[in-house]
């Protein structure tokens, strides 16, 4: 395939949408809105996976799409909302790096991702190359979110959007063995479970989920 053809455009569209949503996640000032964004990203991921499955004629990708839809678009956001309600935490995002700077940093990261991906994979089929660039950007943005947001929920969200990027890459690469989707799904489940456990335990012990409050407990008392 080459530029200007439908499958490429659609896949590119989905990828671009996910990247856009990553920026939205960075941009939002309210936790609930962030979770919504995460849900939408999950949904788009599901669509992308489905589309790839149709394009590549790979039925296992439908399964991926299903899992993504169920877990990322529905269940996890719900769980997070519940979490927020139960912890009665403030609904505003408190940032370590201001919204504006983090957006600029995000743009820089996207530029880096494209810089790294575009020139080097000329030999590989275009569909994978574009998606790889986008997925890489999504991953980096998710990580950026993890380090620029203070409270634990948002860090989990960042982790989640990283996973979304991963799966975008996975589905983008034609013929990726199934093992990877399974493991990714398993990872996401485990991630969320364990993270939930931790957030609860932390909640029990401290009045906030601000991770930096844990540091005084480092065993080496001064």
């Amino acid at each position, binding site marked *: 395939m080459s530029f200007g053809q439908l499958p490429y455009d659609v896949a590119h569209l989905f990828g671009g949408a996910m990247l856009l949503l990553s920026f939205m996640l960075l941009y939002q000032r309210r936790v609930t809105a962030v979770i919504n964004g995460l849900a939408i990203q999950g949904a788009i991921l599901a669509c992308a996976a489905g589309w790839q499955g149709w394009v590549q004629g790979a039925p296992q990708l439908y399964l991926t799409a299903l899992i993504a839809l169920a877990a990322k678009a529905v269940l996890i956001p719900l769980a997070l909302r519940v979490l927020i309600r139960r912890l009665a935490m403030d609904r505003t995002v408190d940032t370590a790096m201001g919204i504006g700077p983090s957006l600029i940093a995000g743009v820089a*990261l996207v530029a880096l991702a494209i*810089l790294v991906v575009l*020139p*080097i994979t000329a030999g590989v089929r275009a569909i994978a190359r574009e998606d790889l660039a986008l997925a890489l950007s999504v991953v980096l943005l998710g*990580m950026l979110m*993890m*380090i620029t947001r203070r409270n634990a929920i948002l860090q989990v969200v960042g982790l989640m959007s990283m996973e979304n990027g991963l799966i975008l890459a996975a589905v983008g690469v034609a013929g990726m063995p199934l093992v990877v989707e399974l493991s990714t799904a398993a990872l996401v489940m485990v991630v969320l479970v364990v993270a939930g456990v931790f957030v609860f335990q932390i909640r029990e012990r401290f009045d906030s989920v601000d*991770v930096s409050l844990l540091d005084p407990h480092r065993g080496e008392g001064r």
Partner: protein
Amino acid sequence: MLTGLLLCILLLGLLALAAVGLGRHPLAGRVVHGGCLAISLGFAGLALAGLGLGLPEAPLALPIGLPGAGAASLLALDGLSAWFLLLLGVTGACASLYALGAPAGPPRSLPPFPLFLAGMAICLAAADAFTLLLGFELMSLASWALVAADHAEAENRAAARRYLMFAALAGACLVPAFGLLAAGAGGLDFTALRAAPPEGWRAAAVLALALAGAGAKAGLVPLHAWLPLAHPAAPSHVSALMSGAMTKVALYVLARLLLDLCGPLQPAWWGVPLLAAGACSALFGALRANMEGDTKVLLACSTIENIGFITVALGLVLAFRGADLGPLAALAAGAALLHALNHGVFKTLLFLVAGAVAHGAGSRKLDRLGGLIHAMPVTALAALVGMAAAASLPPLSGFASEWLLLEALLAGWRVGDIGFQVVAAAATALVAMAAALAAAAMLRCFGLVFLGRIRSPRAAGAEEVPRLERLSLLLPAGLTVLLGLFPAAMLGLAAPAIAVLAGPAALPPARGLALTAGEGASTYLPLAVAGLLVASLVTVWFLVRRRSTGATLRGPVWNCGFIDPPPWLPFGDPLSQPGAAGMAQPLRRMLGGSLLGATETVLMRAPGDPRPGHYAAQAADPSEAGLLAPLARLRDSVAGRAERLRELTIRGCLGLSFGTLVGLLALLAWLEGG
């Protein structure tokens, strides 16, 4: 012969295990030290047989070695190693004998002792770099355990810590040195290394690393800070071994690396660093020996001085060989080897004497001893022999090797380069000064310990040590005399070692019973000198006694009118005879102030004030303030900075990972872009 050597080493290992097994059993000490005595004698016998009857050609491959195929450890015995093995055997035998007689120490000090001997033997007999380093570090580790044996006192722990750190430094310098050698050669065994001598910057790096590594273990200035701490901390027989044998093993490594493995073609300037380091060590050590107030510390400092002498000799060998002056190289090599052996023997003797004094008179402090010659005549005699040798007085052993060394130095001008000539002249002056300083230090030590009046009640109750211990003192004393009388014979024995150091064509600088130098123009005939001395002594005695027959009367001390001691001070007021600080005063004022930063504080009471005046003197080793303290400060500041990285929150840590990733990606983009 090599199998015999291997057997001895294995037996030592078994002894260590047995010592662990026996634990607190009353016979444990006798078993271990008796075994060590036998095995040390075995070492000496093997070495003598090798030097006299011929050395084994092919090395012996051991079932151990570096991980990785075809890297078996090799044992071999050439002239050099045999000579030092002889030294090890003799000193080890004396030390073990003393340990047999001396009161038993704590059981934890038993197992490391055989391992210490084994480590030195392995290091000496090794024929490949790994085995050599293995023995070297084993020696360090075992002796660390011995230094730390009495770890209740904080200063012993500090000494042990510093000791092991310097040992690690030595290892960390020697391994890369061998690595640089091995770069050109195929393997790590000595034959391969010899085949490919280093050149250019590699050679220079090897020289620097070897000097730093071996010097740190041998106690060369400025890496000597551990020595005056570690030697006194260990039990006496161990300090004897450390001082007599271990430092020599370090020098053996130095000689092996620079004179044997680096090949004969190195330039003459290679001698200069050794010359400088050796001369400085000699001066500093001898001067400090004049300031110290503890017998064992004093002896340790004198060890630094003698190590300096040997290093100077080795440097001369390098220089002469580089300038194609074969006979002179042989002369210097003879000086180095002979002085190594002589110092090994008499320093062992002196440390054992210090131990016997501590055992018999209950102290090591010069200011708490005195007049022991009456209570401990045998010990005093042995000490006198040892100290006369250490003061390099003819006709004892110290003088013979010193004579060779000075002759070699006096011939230093034959290396054409004027820069080297000046260095050699300066080294001559420093060595001579160090010798005189050593004489002063030994006089001070002997005079304060054995002569004069008793300085403490405990010393008044001193008694001679038991027979076995006395024997262990008289043995090295006798050896010192013999080595002094027959140095030429010893040099004949050392011919293979000299051939290793100074080239296969080199002949030992001896003719018949005489030491010779400068194409035989100058000679030293120890037997003749001794004979003349004895003869004239007897004659004078005879004549004088014939002329004046009266027996000697005894009376009170005169001293320009000396008050009789008050009843409560039966030996007179201790303060009215010179003490350790007082004896050191002239040299402290003449040299100490400038070289050791020595200071004095005198408190004079106002007239009519009955309280006694007060005098205090202290000297500080410059290597503390100049080298170790800054390093420690640097370490702490860097560590403090490193800690900041640890204060990060989880987000910060994640940021680190993220930064690494982004950095690597950027790097990648850059690498592929350009």
